[in-house]
């Protein structure tokens, strides 16, 4: 064997170790779009919150606070659903291009390691709404989402862990500025997604 063969062996070993443990067909565009949905959702929420802030205390106030809660949950739910559907469609397309299977051991591990911290955070956030601790919702969502990303990064592009860490840091910082949750929420779920999605798009998608 020549030197070239040995080098080829090593790169083949690395390649297979990566492909057998990591799902790498993440789509950059879906990240950008998720960020855009979050910004639009955040803007609508902001409008609702300022309108509600102008209401006088009284009967309409009591009933509209319940409506507001439902509306905000609905907006967050819509943003999340749209993001997941977009990510699924675009990732599937990319997986087909890359000749990578959508449903493989690596993608299953990715999903499980992502969903468990995320679902915990989601339920925790709903319980906060139930208890009326609204100010803590945005930090909670950011922190749990960041931990979910960090946890899942073992099974996909390793740079996802930096996005996760940034979300966690943002969530912790937002604890110091309670009452500005929406701003941090839009920064974390909107701006960071757009930046990270664009980086992936430039680095990985465009090359193909």
């Amino acid at each position: 064997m020549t030197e070239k063969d040995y080098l080829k062996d090593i790169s083949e070993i690395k390649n297979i170790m990566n492909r057998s443990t990591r799902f790498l067909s993440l789509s950059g565009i879906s990240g950008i779009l998720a960020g855009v949905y979050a910004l639009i959702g955040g803007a609508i929420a902001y409008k609702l919150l300022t309108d509600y802030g102008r209401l006088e205390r009284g009967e309409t106030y009591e009933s509209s606070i319940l409506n507001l809660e439902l509306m905000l949950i609905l907006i967050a739910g819509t943003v999340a659903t749209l993001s997941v559907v977009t990510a699924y469609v675009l990732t599937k397309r990319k997986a087909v291009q890359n000749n990578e299977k959508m449903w493989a051991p690596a993608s299953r591990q990715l999903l499980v390691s992502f969903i468990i911290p995320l679902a915990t955070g989601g339920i925790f956030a709903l319980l906060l709404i139930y208890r009326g601790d609204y100010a803590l919702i945005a930090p909670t969502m950011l922190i749990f989402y960041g931990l979910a990303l960090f946890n899942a990064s073992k099974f996909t592009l390793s740079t996802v862990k930096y996005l996760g860490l940034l979300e966690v840091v943002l969530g912790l910082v937002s604890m110091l500025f309670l009452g500005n949750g929406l701003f941090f929420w839009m920064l974390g779920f909107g701006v960071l997604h757009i930046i990270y999605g664009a980086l992936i798009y430039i680095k990985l998608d465009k090359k193909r």
Partner: protein
Amino acid sequence: MHSIIKNINKIFDHRVRLGIMSALMVNDFVDFNTLKELLEVTDGNLASHLKALEKVAYITVTKEFIGRKPNTKYSTTAIGAEAFKKHIAALEKIIRMQQ
């Protein structure tokens, strides 16, 4: 140089066996079909290389049923993992020496 060459394991001197070991090293176990897709080889080809690795006790085989479908899973043995690590170390050493 001679002692390093000694650590180059002849059993791993094939793309498919190298691939099988690489996949098994980083997973608790991998089933037959996943290996097949990962390495892009035919059933027969993969089976014969798995047999060869099994014969030297570098990997173990577990057969089970998912519903009615048989599912064969493979994992490395301690000996196999040790041998593969030595092999990689030897490869790296040779590459470094030649540079």
